[in-house]
């Protein structure tokens, strides 16, 4: 049963990706980054992508695999330390990197996903990460204005999706995924399991399917975690 016609295949997903798009990706150090959709992004050949997500993954893990191909134009993330290639590309001027405090970044994505016009915070005031962000003064206190973030396309990793796109997540693979799923025009979910509507407990759904446009079946992680590798590099 595919009443809302959301369950689809990777070839169809490729057709919604385009050069120059802003792509939000879920995951934290690759945990919760959809492996099949990263490969889909790589195989689609799209370029000049503006990436937004928690971090740069590792060179062989998560969004890091795509970053290494030099087809991302920019990256907005909280850190890139686990992917030295991203640091090299940044230093060579091939990848424009903007850093954000981690919790502020996801809150900006949340703001985009829930229709808010941004928020104020003291975090980052007076530091290099204030960039050119507007400063708002209320009484004697100054705040940075943090603008909402939205994307053209989001890629999300879920434990289970029903055919409407209601989502639940697995342990720490949830991380940024629920809000990444809510903040883009097109939201593609790679689910470890796709189940009929009515089989998920409505009390336990984390993301209501209203935000989800495409659902594909996952084949699971296709990379080795750093802790699984024998060399201690």
């Amino acid at each position, binding site marked *: 049963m595919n009443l809302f016609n959301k369950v689809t295949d990777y070839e169809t997903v490729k057709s919604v990706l385009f050069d120059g798009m802003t792509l939000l990706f879920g995951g934290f150090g690759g945990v919760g980054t959809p492996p099949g959709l990263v490969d889909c992004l790589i195989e689609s050949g799209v370029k000049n992508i503006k990436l937004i997500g928690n971090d740069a993954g590792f060179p062989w893990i998560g969004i890091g695999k795509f970053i290494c191909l030099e087809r991302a134009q920019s990256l907005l993330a909280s850190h*890139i330390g686990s992917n030295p290639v991203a640091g090299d590309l940044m230093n060579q001027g091939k990848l424009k990197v903007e850093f954000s405090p981690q*919790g502020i970044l996801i809150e900006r994505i949340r703001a985009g996903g829930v229709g808010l016009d941004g928020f104020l915070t003291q975090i980052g005031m007076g530091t290099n990460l204030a960039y050119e962000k507007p400063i708002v003064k209320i009484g004697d206190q100054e705040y940075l204005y943090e603008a909402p973030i939205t994307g053209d396309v989001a890629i999300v990793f879920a434990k289970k999706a029903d055919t409407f796109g209601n989502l639940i997540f697995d342990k720490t693979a*949830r991380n940024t995924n629920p809000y990444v799923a809510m903040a883009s025009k097109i939201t593609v979910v790679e689910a470890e399991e796709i189940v009929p509507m009515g089989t998920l407990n409505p009390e336990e759904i984390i993301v209501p399917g209203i935000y989800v446009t495409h659902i594909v079946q996952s084949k699971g992680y296709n990379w080795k975690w750093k802790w699984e590798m024998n060399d201690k590099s």
Partner: protein
Amino acid sequence: MEMGDERQIIAQRAAHEVKDGMIVNLGIGIPSLVPDYLDSSIRVFFQAENGILGMGPTPTIKPDGNLSNAAGLPVTILSGGSYFDSTIAFGMIRRGCIDVSILGALQVSERGDLANWIVPGKRVPGVGGAMELAYGAKNLIALMTHCEKDGRPKIVKKCTLPITAFNCVKKIVTEMAVFAIHDDAMVLEEIMPGFSLMDIKNHTEADFKVSPRLKETSPS
């Protein structure tokens, strides 16, 4: 003293700051060694930015790729633990629900400014959650070796590296000393074994007072 020894000594001393019943967030690097030195009678809940409260030890069998700490290493979850998304992870950090945050540092100033996210032109790790932890944690402890490899002090009058957050560090633990940072002054509280007050003065750029209760710490 070997580099590895210094890190272990710092972690061992920092473990004394963790008390029974606390909610604790540990940064990467030296702070990740702290749990190895906690007394087995101490029960705490470790929180991590990737969405877990009540982290347990490294699994001995079958690690789960979807259950990790903020450094991406496999962990377990204790009874009473919970999973949550990144907004909640940082919501509890900003809101002041973390009793102690133990972070690695590159430089700390005498007024408690923290620099720990970038060495321009060299290391580019990125800020991660450090700015929020510095803003929200009830107590922020910075761990670092006392000096750079070339001998330059890391405890300085004013940070020369890009700032993570101003006026946030409450305590500094190095292999040489423990400092408390109060509103009006930085105070030397402990001298670690093998060092003298003169050693500390020679290797610290920041101005500091000496606590009347100054003690030498025994390592065990």
